[in-house]
């Protein structure tokens, strides 16, 4: 049979394709069917947080940092509760990473703070001697792209029913709503208001001045995102 196939490349190709596609069908399709549902307490990202997430991706933080706490005592001791599938329900793309040159960041919002990040991102080795993380000085000058984050929010709300403006159950039994502005101007204003809350805990005068002028530096958005990782 194989000899025949080797003389009939079309059928050969069909068979190769079938054999190759087979595993994907068996493994991926059934697991997809049981959609990953958000666990209680998981919220979609606000405009500023999502802007920060894009800053994170743009700067390749995922090349050194994972966001996946595996169920081993050594990891839960270091980073907190192991990851649960539903916590990632609003993560597009997922950011698990595959290399921990730096520590996991899945719950970094629990044990690091705005002022710490401010110092650390500017010059990691001055805060943690021996760190080999690059200095991200440009984040303090570049203006963050809030519009694209807003566009992404609208997209996921529309195509994937991400529940913005809907009360969501929290762990303590309360309900919380993540607002999504109706207009771009509204989204910008909300992001700016959130940015002001962050800069209140920051020291860099240039950053504070930029926010006063209505511009959000990338670092502020990034910190909003890092603080949201819990």
């Amino acid at each position, binding site marked *: 049979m194989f000899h025949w196939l080797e003389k009939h490349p079309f059928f050969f190709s069909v068979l190769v394709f079938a054999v190759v596609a087979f595993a994907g069908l068996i493994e991926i399709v059934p697991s997809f069917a049981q959609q990953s549902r958000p666990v209680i307490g998981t919220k979609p990202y606000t405009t500023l947080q999502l802007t920060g997430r894009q800053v994170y991706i743009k700067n390749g933080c995922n090349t050194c940092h994972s966001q996946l706490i595996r*169920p*081993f*005592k050594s990891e*839960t*001791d*270091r*980073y*907190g509760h*192991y990851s649960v599938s539903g916590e990632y329900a609003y993560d597009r793309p997922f950011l698990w990473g595959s290399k921990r040159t730096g520590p996991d960041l899945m719950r970094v919002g*629990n*044990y*690091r*703070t*705005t*002022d*710490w990040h401010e*110092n650390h991102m500017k010059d990691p080795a*001055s*805060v*943690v*001697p021996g760190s080999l993380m690059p200095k991200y000085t440009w984040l303090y000058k570049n203006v963050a792209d809030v519009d694209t984050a807003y566009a992404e929010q609208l997209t996921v709300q529309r195509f994937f029913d991400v529940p913005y403006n809907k009360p969501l159950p929290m762990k303590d039994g309360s309900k919380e709503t993540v607002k999504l502005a109706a207009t771009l101007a509204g989204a910008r204003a909300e992001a700016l208001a959130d940015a002001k809350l962050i800069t209140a*805990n920051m020291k860099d005068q240039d950053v504070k001045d930029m926010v006063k002028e209505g511009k959000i530096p990338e670092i502020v958005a990034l910190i909003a995102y890092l603080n949201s990782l819990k």
Partner: protein
Amino acid sequence: MNKIYLWGVIITAVMLGFTYMSVLGSKGGLNGDIINILTVAAAAALVIITIFVVIKYVRQMQVDTATGELAEESWDGIGEYKNNVPFGWAIIFLGTMVWATWYFVIGYPVNAFSQIGQYNEEVAVQNKKFEAKYASITGDRLVEMGESVFLAECAVCHGISADGNDGAAANLNQRLEVKTVKHVIEHGSKNNLLYAGSEMPDRNGLMNANKNYAPITDAEIDTVASYVANGMTGPGADVFAGVCSSCHGTDGKGIDGVAPNIAEFTPAFVVNILNHGKKGVIGTMPKLDKLNKKQKEAVGAYVTSLSK
């Protein structure tokens, strides 16, 4: 012995030596950890198998000759022998396929492995081991344990020598710094330092009993701040007595349920900070839920020991 085997042995020895070094390099060594042991065993097998299998084929290159019946076809001058597949390879391939099929159909479904179950067991074992141990850790040993927690969890902010890392976090070698005291007097404090909801008023609520309850002045703030930061010594004792002692006690060591000890660290105070976090003039210290009770107690003892 043939040179090539000698090389094989040398390379294997070097690679295994490296693996051994990397185990030593990790302070704990194998540590009786089954995962560590398996990893090292697998790494060793990996080297040995590859090297000796390759040597087997190199020997064939050296001494054997190519034989077999050629297939009729040839492509751009490349011919193919109709040799059979190597027997060992065929058997192992078949064996692993059967094993994989068995695993897929029976092995996995019947085993009911769950990684979270495995985790719960691991944690239970560890907890049991240390619960017994924790009871007996006290005194200097507790401080020692606290230091190990401190280095792993706190040093990133407070620095390895707990000096606050150039002002990035609080200097824990002394109870309070001038700027903190000043800030607290001017703005008050709402850090749950004593109990959830404990609060100190800002300067508008601080009156000097010695001066007919006049609001505290800028000059008084300066003096009393350095008085407190200097460990309750130097000028400013009078202001302290007039403004602060009613809550913090005449010696600054606090009054139960009224105000915290500001003369020195106490383990309970530190534990409270670890439970609630603290926001002040330097920045924000997070609460650290990932530490267990004993770890908090230990690090409390360690921090307290620093300024003694």
